[in-house]
Structures are given as C-alpha cells and as structure tokens.
C-alpha cells in the first residue's frame, strides 16, 4: 500500500509533468525515436519483402532473417551502436532500425507469397500488367499481414527504446534506470507503468489502423493476421 501510495504521489506531483524530465517531454522523446526508427525500417524492409515475395525469390533468406533477428540481443546492439556513434539519438535510431527490419521483411514476404495464385492468374487474364497487378491486386490482399509485421516491429521498437536510457538516451526508460540508480521505487514503478501503457497503446493503435486499411471484403476472407504473424520479442 505504501508503494502504491508513493507511485500515486509521483504521478500527481506537478513537477513530474513539466520540464526536460517531465512526462510529456519523455513521452515525446520515446515516441519520436520509435516512430523515426519504424519509419526508416519500413522504408527499407517493405520494398525488399514485397519485391522478394512478388517474385518468390530468396524465400529462405526472407523467412530466416526474422529468426536471426530474434537471436540478436537488443542490449548488445544498442551498446555497440553507442560505442560507434557516441552520445545522442543516432545510435538509438540505428539500433532500433536494425531491430525493426527483420520482422517487416519476413511478414511482407509471406504476405505476398500467400496471395492465391488463382487470383494472380485471374488478374493476368483480365489484362493487368505486372506493376498494376502488384499494386492493385496483390498488395491490397497482402495488407493485413504486412500491417501485422509493422505492428510487431513497432511494439518491439517501443520496448527496446526503453533501453536507450542505458546509453544516456531519453524516453520513459529514463525513469526506470534513474529510479534503480537512486533507489527510488516510486519513480521506477511509475516508469514501468508508462512504458507498459505506451507498448499497449502502440499495439492497440496499430491494430486499429490495420482495421481501417484493410477493405471490409478482404477482412471477411482472411483469418486474422494476428494469428498467422510470427511472434517477435527482443526487449
């Protein structure tokens, strides 16, 4: 009860809602680092996965890359990036982007591979050229699984961004790491709650986006992508 009370006090203390160590600033840092990394990662990974999936080439590589990605310790990659690039946002973004890429490649590859060959043949029979077929037939059908890959990556990036505090970065991880260092349980727990809420919000928000992006007819046809997408956890 006393711990819960002190956590409540921490949250209701106006000092924790302003300034460079306030919740709004830390939230902005966390979201910005994560969003930039997911965006850069998506710009790299999605074209690669989509093209490989469309042509059905290098399937082993596309699938095994997320296996390999799972084996990479996120803490190690962050620290290596820190020793290479030094202080600042750059090492965090480099490490987070590297972690974001593998599940997006695998899921977008599988998404394109899973498009029914009969549908592709019908598209060809209707006179679609290759690019039009990819953009107007295959991609819409692949969106659910592609989005599941983005969501999986984004949740992991938000989780790993917590570790940025270990290499002197910002974000909500700051409260956890500083709380440990200062033996301030209230701050540690408050940080943990904020981090968990942000991870949930990312998951739920991107699920909602997925629902908006997937045409109703396609959604009815497909098993929820959530169930088919591979689990991915690195932080």
């Amino acid at each position, binding site marked *: 009860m006393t*711990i819960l009370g002190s956590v409540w006090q921490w949250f209701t203390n106006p000092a924790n809602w302003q300034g460079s160590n306030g919740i709004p600033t830390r939230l902005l840092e966390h979201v910005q680092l994560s969003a930039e990394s997911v965006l850069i990662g998506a710009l790299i990974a999605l074209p690669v996965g989509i093209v490989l999936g469309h042509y059905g080439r290098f399937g082993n590589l596309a699938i095994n890359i997320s*296996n*390999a990605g*799972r*084996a*990479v*310790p*996120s*803490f*190690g*990659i962050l*620290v*290596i990036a*820190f*020793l290479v690039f030094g202080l600042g946002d750059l090492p965090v973004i480099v490490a987070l982007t590297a972690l974001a890429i593998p599940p997006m490649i695998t899921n977008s590859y599988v998404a394109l591979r899973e498009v029914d060959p009969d549908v592709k043949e019908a598209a060809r029979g209707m006179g679609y050229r290759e690019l039009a077929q990819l953009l107007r037939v295959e991609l819409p059908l692949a969106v659910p699984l592609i989005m599941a890959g983005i969501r999986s990556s984004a*949740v992991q990036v*938000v*989780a*790993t961004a*917590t*570790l940025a505090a*270990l*290499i002197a970065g910002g974000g909500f*991880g700051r409260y*956890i*790491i500083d*709380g*440990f260092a200062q033996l301030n*349980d209230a701050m*540690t*727990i408050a*940080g*943990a*709650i904020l*981090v*968990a809420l942000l*991870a*949930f919000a990312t*998951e739920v928000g991107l699920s909602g986006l997925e629902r908006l992006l997937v045409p109703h007819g396609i959604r009815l046809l497909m098993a929820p992508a959530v169930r088919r997408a*591979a*689990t991915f*956890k*690195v*932080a």
Partner: protein
Amino acid sequence: MPSRLFLDAEDPWVNWDWLLNHVPYVLDALEQHLVLTVIAVVGGLAISIPLGLLAHRAPLIRLVVIGGFGAFYTIPSLAVFALLVPFTGIATTTTAEIPLIGYNVFILLRNVVVGLDAVPREVLDAADGMGYRPRARMLRVELPLALPAIFAGLRVATVSTIGLITITAVIGLGGLGQLINQGLQENFRTPLVVATLGSIALALVADLALSAGQRFALPWSRQA
C-alpha cells in the same frame, strides 16, 4: 570482476590477450546464461502444456489465457523487472524468470493450441473407435501429433529467451549481458563484442540442437 582503464582510441574490437586471460570469467557468464535460459524455457513448457490442453477444450479459457498472456507479452521486459524489483528483489532469479517464463508461456501456448486444433477429426474418431478413453487419447494420440507444432514454438521461445536474458544485466544478472554491461561501463569493446556474438551463437546453436532433437525424437514430424 576484472577491470580496465579505458579511453584508448586504438581499442580493437576484440583484444585477444584480454579474452584469453578471462576465459573462466566468460564461461561463468555463459553458464548463468544457460541456467536462466533452461529455467525460462522449461518453466514455460510446464505451464503452457497443461494450460494449452485446457484451452483447447474450453473456448472461454482459451480466450482468457491467450488474451491475458498476449497482453503480458506486449509489456517490455525492463518494465516488468522494474515492477517486480521492489517486491522480489534485485538480482534474484525470481525477478528475472517471471517475465521470461510468462513470455514463453504465450509463445508455447499458441503453438500447443494450434497443434491440438490441427489433429484431424478422423484420427480422433479412429482413436475413439479403437477404444481409447479421453485421457489416453489426449496423451497418446493428440499430444504426440501436436508435438511438431510445440517444438516449433519451443525453438522460437528458446531463441527469444537467449536474447532477452542479456537485459537482466540491468537487474544485476544478465549472463553474457554482464559482459555487455561491462563493455558499456568501461567503454571497452572486447567483452561487448564477445558477449553479443556469443549470445547470437548460443541462440543459433540452441536452435540447431532443438531442430536436430526434433528430427530424432519426433520422426513423424514432416517439417520443421
């Protein structure tokens, strides 16, 4: 713990002299890594198999446990450690294993249920026709047929766990993560590189070993 002054611009990525002089230190970290991995994976199996058998039969239980563990799986490990430390202590196996086991339960549970769901109706009918009682049918027909799917989950869980354990360095454990932390604290590349590559290698070796073990133990599984 061996220590070293840093700020050496010529610090190589791997200082072989240091490494050769610290073999026992590295092996200790590796041992802790393995022990934490085995507890997390075996603990995950021990919970997920009975829970999966239950969830397979009762749709409500399935919804609740998969939803619940799925939500837990979303929470970053550092956050769970932070929530637990005031209660279960810093640098304790309990603090490290609660999230790791919980994440593995989610990964394995999904595969247990999917594996059990995939057992063909005809097989169940044949088993019933041969006079299997429900329990015997579950243990001797359904579970063996679900094992390939469970093994696939086991591989994912093991590989993920090996990577995640490095983060327990934050709460004073870490296995090879201790070396990553040392590399960070002392700005010293060798332990960092050795531990990062070592963790990746350990995960790949464990994955290969499990895949070989599956081929040996479950000759009826057609694919990995």
